[in-house]
């Protein structure tokens, strides 16, 4: 089937979407809250979100060949389906603005300090719009290639960091005084594990029967991946430096020496940041897919341009608002809970109830 993806593509779709912005901000967030015991809340969150991913994949499996917008009409009726689709479209545009601002700030502060931010933004949006126009199946194929490179380069980079780092920076792995920070850490982890909802724009087929199991294992893998990133960053920078630096992971890479590779940070910029690009592409695609269904009479490429222009204008406005990232982060927390958990869980329960009602 042309409009479908394989289980392996589901794995990479989840990895690339969830890790979008996390690699950059997670070490600081974890060091600040759970300290050296970060691996406990990370793994607990990965299990919780693993269950969420099972709910979404089971929901998709209940309606093979259909995306959320289509089957939500069967579950909740036409009005609610349009309402939820509009919510998701606005939600993904919101996430898109958040990610693009992060991307621009990251590029400006680490690699291109003299390049105007609006130019980086323009270039980024054009690229993401072009990729999103190709549709979710093509994007999933692209993620498969980028995903392998991203995971490989990041893991290798982290291994170099672990071998070069100081063990005292991460020890002890568990301190009783850190327990009180676990709740705060789990709250901080909601956004890094958010993004599973992109599966709602993917139509599942017969070959995705194993998807719930794959999705759960993927979330466990992502948990371990986050642990590796956080621990290796703290090993290089130390806990206090990690707390102070917003882009601690990149700063740690800049310090790490690797054999043959003189500039490990440039290697990471090339491959490691592909998750950030992929995340922005999938978010654009998700907003586009929902918009295309809401405005089904408008041609796809016109919707692409419209979303691109809206995103660009919103980003330019957001660039001039003080502390906008903190504000967006605050809203992201609630929006991720609604989008990743509450809406899919409600739809899942409704679908099960309807199914039982129909049987009886």
């Amino acid at each position, binding site marked *: 089937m042309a409009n479908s993806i394989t289980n392996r593509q589901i794995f990479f779709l989840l990895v690339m979407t969830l890790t979008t912005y996390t690699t950059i901000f997670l070490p600081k967030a974890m060091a600040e809250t759970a300290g050296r015991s970060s691996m406990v809340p990370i793994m607990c969150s990965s299990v919780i979100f693993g269950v969420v991913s099972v709910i979404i994949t089971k929901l998709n499996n209940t309606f093979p060949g259909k995306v959320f917008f289509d089957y939500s009409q069967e579950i909740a009726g036409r009005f609610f389906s349009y309402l939820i689709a509009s919510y998701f479209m606005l939600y993904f545009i919101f996430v898109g603005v958040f990610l693009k601002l992060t991307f621009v700030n990251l590029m400006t502060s680490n690699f291109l300090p003299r390049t105007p931010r609006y130019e980086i933004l323009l270039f980024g949006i054009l690229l993401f719009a072009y990729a999103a126009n190709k549709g979710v199946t093509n994007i999933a194929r692209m993620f498969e290639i980028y995903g392998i490179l991203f995971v490989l380069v990041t893991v290798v980079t982290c291994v170099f960091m672990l071998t070069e780092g100081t063990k005292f920076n991460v020890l002890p792995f568990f301190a*009783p*005084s850190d327990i009180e920070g676990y709740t705060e850490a789990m709250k901080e982890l909601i956004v890094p594990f958010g993004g599973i909802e992109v599966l709602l724009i993917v139509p599942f087929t017969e070959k995705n029967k194993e998807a719930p199991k794959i999705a759960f294992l993927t979330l466990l893998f992502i948990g371990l991946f986050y642990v590796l990133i956080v621990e290796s960053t703290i090993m290089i920078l130390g806990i206090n430096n990690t707390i102070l630096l917003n882009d601690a992971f990149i700063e*740690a890479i800049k310090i790490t020496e690797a054999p043959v590779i003189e500039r490990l940070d440039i290697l990471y910029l090339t491959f490691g940041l592909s998750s950030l690009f992929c995340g922005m592409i999938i978010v654009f695609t998700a907003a586009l897919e929902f918009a295309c269904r809401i405005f089904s009479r408008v041609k796809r*490429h016109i919707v*692409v341009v419209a979303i691109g222009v809206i995103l660009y204008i919103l980003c330019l406005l957001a660039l001039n608002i003080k502390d906008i990232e903190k504000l967006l982060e605050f809203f992201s927390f609630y929006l991720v809970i609604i989008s990743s958990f509450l809406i899919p869980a409600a739809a899942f329960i409704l679908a099960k109830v309807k199914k039982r009602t129909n049987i009886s």
Partner: protein
Amino acid sequence: MKKSGKIFLILVFTLCIPAFAAACADSKDIHEQSILMSICLDKKDDEIYYYAEIANITGSNKDEGKSSSADRKYIFYYSHGKTIHEARRKLYMQLERRAYYGAIRTLILTENFAKEHLVEYLYRLRTDELYRKKTMIVITTVDPEKLFKINNENDISVGFSIEEMLETLDEEGQSFTRTTSRMLENLSSSYTGFLIPCIGLRNNKNSLVGYSVVNGTTINGFIPVEDSKALVFLKTDKPRFFYTVPYKGNEFTIETSLKKRKIEPSYEDGNVSFDLKFDFEAKLLYGDKKTPYNFDDISNEGVTKILTEILKNEIKDAVLEAQKHFKCDYLQFDDEFRVKFPEEFESMDWQNEFPEASVNIDVKVVLSGSWMMDFETDVRK
């Protein structure tokens, strides 16, 4: 492809061109930049002196206003001002091209400067995204102008020379280096005590002359390199030194390598103590008398005992110096204690606890001959 798709593609690529061009705002050809190899900061007469060594990549440059050695591989500039940024700004006024900080090999601070501005400058380095983050930091006891002039006359880069020398000594187990991030982490922790390699001139050549002791936020001491063997045993993983052991009229030269070091903290009744265990591997290389030595098991036992005592005393003196003389835990025992007793460490003032901690030292030496020599034989023809 549909017409609309083609128009969309053309639009995308047309808009991409200015975007690509704009990204070039950060691009600058190498010959359009002043590439800094090392920076040195000094404090004299209440003024900050800022020295910079710049790679002369454009070749001969004999314009006025530069040092007389401007036709060499490296040119050095200096400026001074009331504050660091004022001194830096004055230096910029001398440069023809934009300063590039991404290649700095070594950051040299004089003792006078470091005593007052160590924290300020290291924090500046952490914040400045243009600075090379792997830059090595050293202290110098020499007047920077002399240091740069002598190196410049020899056509040697101070930055590269010091970096390579320290890296080689570290690899050979003769010294130790500390990354800037580790210094910054130590400076940001509740307790701060560490050592910074100190560079001087010996026979007009750059040389490691010792270690400067950083206690809190300032420098409060100096350990000469001659007295630092035990320090290296305490701080690095594979140190290796030569010892001369007198035994029955012969002076045996023995290569001594550290195989294993274990630092075990304990905390009982409010008292901190450490058990230090060292396993050394020693190789008899030669003596100063004629062979054969008939170096049998009894001789081996005797020499081992003397060497063990030497090592034990050196380590004991090094620990006592840190505890009683400098009252500073640059040995990083605080890390060992914190890992085992995190809660207790949080509630104690390590500055007061460390000098009072009791330390037990256990040294084991296994002495053998080198594989290619048989010193046990008593045969002479």
